[in-house]
């Protein structure tokens, strides 16, 4: 299935994992599930952040996330991957991204999840704009992994 989704409204990553695992219906085949959830902080570079807006490149975002999943499946022996990424206005403590990987053994799940997340951070066309007490500012670079 390898689904990717761009969401305009808030989502619960734990419900999404549970729901997708039910749809996948491959109990007994996977022995490892690794997930990464990125959540909005209320601080960045010594400033209090009130909220954030996430812009993206419609069309290319989907294409790039699909490419990440395909590459992960080529590189590791995986059963399934799932990516959900928010766009639009994000509030403090809102989940921004979910990457989840199912495989028979843990090494593949851990390694693929890390690869997918790092590739997404460095190349998927999303941009964050933070709102602080001093006004709006574009985030110029991601924090090191």
């Amino acid at each position, binding site marked *: 299935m390898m689904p990717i989704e761009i969401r305009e409204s808030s989502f619960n990553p734990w419900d999404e994992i549970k729901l997708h695992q039910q749809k996948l219906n491959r109990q007994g085949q996977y022995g490892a599930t690794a997930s990464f959830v990125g959540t909005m902080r209320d601080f960045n570079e010594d400033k209090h952040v009130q909220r954030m807006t996430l812009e993206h*490149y419609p069309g290319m975002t989907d294409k790039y996330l699909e490419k990440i999943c395909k590459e992960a499946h080529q590189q590791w022996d995986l059963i399934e991957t799932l990516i959900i990424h928010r766009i639009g206005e994000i509030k403090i403590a809102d989940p921004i991204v979910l990457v989840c990987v199912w495989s028979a053994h843990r090494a593949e799940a851990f390694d693929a999840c890390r690869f997918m997340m790092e590739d997404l951070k460095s190349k998927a066309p999303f941009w964050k704009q933070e709102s602080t007490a001093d006004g709006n500012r574009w985030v110029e670079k991601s924090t090191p992994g």
Partner: protein
Amino acid sequence: MNITVKYFASLREQLGKSEEILTLSDEISIAEVWQNVSASISGNIESENILMTINMEYVKSDALVKTGDEVAFFPPVTGG
């Protein structure tokens, strides 16, 4: 030949537009397209700090642009 050019995030704000159609007389590199479109930005942004795509695929600055292509320029990405 016509191409569509898109701009995102801080670059979109600096240029004051998100998209435009450009008419080119010859096949040129994407770096040359960038030189033309970025001329109006004060404090000129170096092309090394800009990511470039043709038809939603990352390309190097010497990639050639063809008629009908969708070209995009944007700053480093910050998702996730």
